[in-house]
């Protein structure tokens, strides 16, 4: 029998009577990338949190190199050799790279710490990973991808045997993904074990050695990556066969112009942006990280000062200076970052979903009619198939996909004409993605204009009528459905003219 680095045996965990994990087992061998898959709410995060010492299992045990291990906290887990790179990074932005790497285990004498020694050591670690990051620079000045690399450096600095990565590629560009995979390759050669959580099929099949699939808190099975096709994988995850990643398009003719932008400029980030979207049309917005896609959506929604340019909504010129104006003009904005600008996690599903349209459920403009509000919220829960115990459940306790649906439902209750959606399927499992795609298509068929920002090119190609591609704050070009291909989009996104570019 082969040597095993990490063994997870029969882990069971329930939260106030609800079973989140039911006797889940898997193991990681040295030099292996073990991918963990499952829909949102399948129990992946809970399982990782148990391994990492944030939660404690009700039953079962975890063995590290054959010895039973019980991590009391993430710091404890780290000392024992398990490091976790979270999906939502939590570096201290105002500290230097070196300080972040050695956070909690600073070098020094007594209460003083030795900044120079720390920077030296940090430099060594970064060098080992072939990273060109200065250890003295503040985290705030780094891009998301670089910050993630620093997290990885942190894991390496404690000689981690197991590194858990939770959707590490959700916020970084194609090129950076390559760099990350390079580093993972190196780790494997050194005999480390990687637990990798992701929803992106192409990635998974590139780096996985074995795949364990979770569904509804149970392990469906562990498979060798080469023995599975994408379709089989999806079928096992959702418990049904899915013919296609995308719902069939609904045939309809786009109507009159809903949104028109001309010569829009914002200091430093946007230059001379012109575009238009017709009713019933889905316009995709492609580009690399930092190309200015989110910034464009923010500018349209009144969250950035517009220096120049004009915006017409349904043929009328409008000046939108704050989100309030945008909402009144019939715009909706599903933002990129759920935790930061999306949800109020301190409240219930009901209260979060109804906040935007509360006025409609009121008598005398202020007094809420519980009946009307409940009816609207229940409608939202039903149409978007939100999995929640009840409308009074805490919205922060839902899985990522369901949280996203609550946000979409909140906007849809406002019956907007134009929807700006920034990465609407980020961090969402295949099943929920499919549902979001159907919702987007249905909305378009109902005559809504949709601007969809996405980093997943198949998604843009599968859904959009047209795709505008941004590069360094400008729109480099627009592609019609016939012209769309991953290669064409990439070429424009990389700032290249012409069509002679290969993706890899």
């Amino acid at each position, binding site marked *: 029998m082969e040597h095993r680095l990490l063994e997870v045996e029969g882990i069971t965990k*329930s939260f*106030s009577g*609800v079973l989140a994990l039911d006797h889940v087992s898997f193991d990681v061998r040295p030099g292996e990338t073990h991918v963990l898959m499952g829909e949102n709410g399948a129990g992946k995060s809970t399982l990782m949190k148990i391994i990492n010492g944030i939660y404690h299992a009700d039953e079962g045990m975890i063995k590290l190199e054959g010895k039973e291990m019980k991590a009391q906290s993430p710091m404890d887990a780290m000392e024992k050799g398990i490091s976790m790179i979270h999906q939502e990074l939590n570096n201290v932005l105002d500290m230097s790279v070196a300080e972040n790497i050695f956070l909690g285990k600073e070098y020094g004498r007594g209460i003083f710490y030795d900044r120079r020694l720390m920077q030296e050591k940090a430099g060594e670690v970064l060098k080992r990973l072939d990273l060109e990051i200065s250890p003295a620079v503040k985290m705030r000045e780094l891009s998301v991808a670089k910050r993630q690399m620093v997290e990885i450096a942190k894991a390496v600095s404690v000689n981690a045997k197991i590194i858990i990565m939770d959707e590490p590629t959700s916020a970084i560009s194609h090129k950076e993904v390559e760099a990350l995979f390079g580093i993972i390759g190196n780790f494997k050669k050194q005999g480390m074990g990687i637990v990798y959580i992701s929803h992106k099929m192409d990635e998974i099949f590139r780096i996985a050695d074995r795949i364990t699939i979770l569904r509804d808190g149970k392990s469906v099975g562990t498979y060798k990556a080469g023995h599975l096709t994408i379709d089989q994988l999806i079928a096992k995850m959702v418990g049904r066969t899915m013919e296609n990643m995308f719902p069939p398009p609904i045939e309809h003719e786009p109507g009159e112009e809903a949104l028109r932008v001309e010569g829009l400029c914002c200091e430093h980030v946007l230059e001379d942006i012109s575009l238009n979207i017709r009713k019933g049309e889905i316009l995709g917005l492609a580009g690399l990280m930092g190309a200015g896609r989110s910034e464009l959506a923010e500018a349209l929604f009144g969250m950035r000062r517009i220096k120049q340019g004009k915006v017409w909504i349904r043929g009328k010129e409008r000046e939108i200076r704050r*989100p*309030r104006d945008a909402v009144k003009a019939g715009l909706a904005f599903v933002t990129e970052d759920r935790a930061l600008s999306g949800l*109020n996690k301190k409240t219930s599903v009901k209260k979060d979903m109804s*906040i935007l349209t*509360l006025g409609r459920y009121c008598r005398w403009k202020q007094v809420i009619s519980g009946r009307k509000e409940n009816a609207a919220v229940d409608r939202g829960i039903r149409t978007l198939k939100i999995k929640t115990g009840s409308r009074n459940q805490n919205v922060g306790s839902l899985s990522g996909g369901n949280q996203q649906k609550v946000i979409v439902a909140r906007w849809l209750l406002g019956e907007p004409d134009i929807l700006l959606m920034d990465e609407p399927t980020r961090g969402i499992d295949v099943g929920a993605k499919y549902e979001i795609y159907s919702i987007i298509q249905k909305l378009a068929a109902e005559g809504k204009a949709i601007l969809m920002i996405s980093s997943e090119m198949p998604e843009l190609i599968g859904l959009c009528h047209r795709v505008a591609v941004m590069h360094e704050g400008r729109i480099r070009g627009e592609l019609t459905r016939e012209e769309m291909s991953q290669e064409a989009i990439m070429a424009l996104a990389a700032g290249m003219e012409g069509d002679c570019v290969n993706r890899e």
Partner: protein
Amino acid sequence: MRQEWREIVSTGNKEGQFKVYVAKYGIYFLFLLVFILLSVSNKAFFTVNNLLNISKQASIVAIIAMGQTICLISGGMDLSSGSVMALAGVTSAMYGLADGTNMPAAVLTAIGVGMTCGLINGLIVSWGKVPAFIATLGMQQAARGMALLLTNATPVFGLSEQYIFLGSGKISGIPVLVIVMILVMLASAFMLNKTKFGRHIYAIGGNELSAYVSGLNVKRTRLLAYTITGALTGLGGLLLAGRIQSGTPAMAEGYELDAIAGAVIGGVSTSGGIGSVYGAVIGALLMTMVNNGLDLLNVSAYYQQIIKGIIIVLTVFIDVRTKDIKK
């Protein structure tokens, strides 16, 4: 709340059920526990007179605590309550003197002064973007100075009977203070739970950016929250002046901290977005009840202060520990 009860009861698992129960209503259990303990340990405690006395004592702190609750839920904090109470108390006392009685003017002055101070706090915090801690600390100093200046540092005596009635009178055996406190509680609870404005207060305190993106008028909501807090503070100042039968510029020192403690004991989050006025009232009652019980047991005031400090930290400690279960 009732619906949540039903849900908890319906989730089979008995042990988990009990835990959730305790976590959610811990403060009410604690209140009952202390109440029973004191009733058993001291005969003088469980008497109509003493209980009325406790509720009377707790009323003003409870009103200020409810003001703090509104402010805390919106993501703010008001350190100026004590001073603003004094300022509202002395200015209204000047209109409430026995010669030239003008009760409506006295009441309106107290509430108006409180509202004005709250409005200024709100303006500085929402438009000036000064942290609430600093802005209201400034108001704490300025309002106290103003109260001293207006009165030349001497109390305003000779209040009319109606004025004193507010602080010490009874209506069919129930202290006016308690009646006012209950009215404020019902009104604030209604505002927070049943109105659009109340929901907006929770929303901006829970996640300001999300509220802003959803098109809420964050600044105006925050401004109004501070103004309402100020109005309740002014009302508290009026009642306190009536109770001590003078407008004293040095009165109500440290009230803001008692009020914040009451709110926090009652489950209001200092980081905003969570809490209820019922909790704040129970918190204020609990603290007063402990004081009273210890008085009856002849525990010195110094020990009482130590015990109060321990209670404040302990309740929040327990609250933090049980948060996981709540989810």
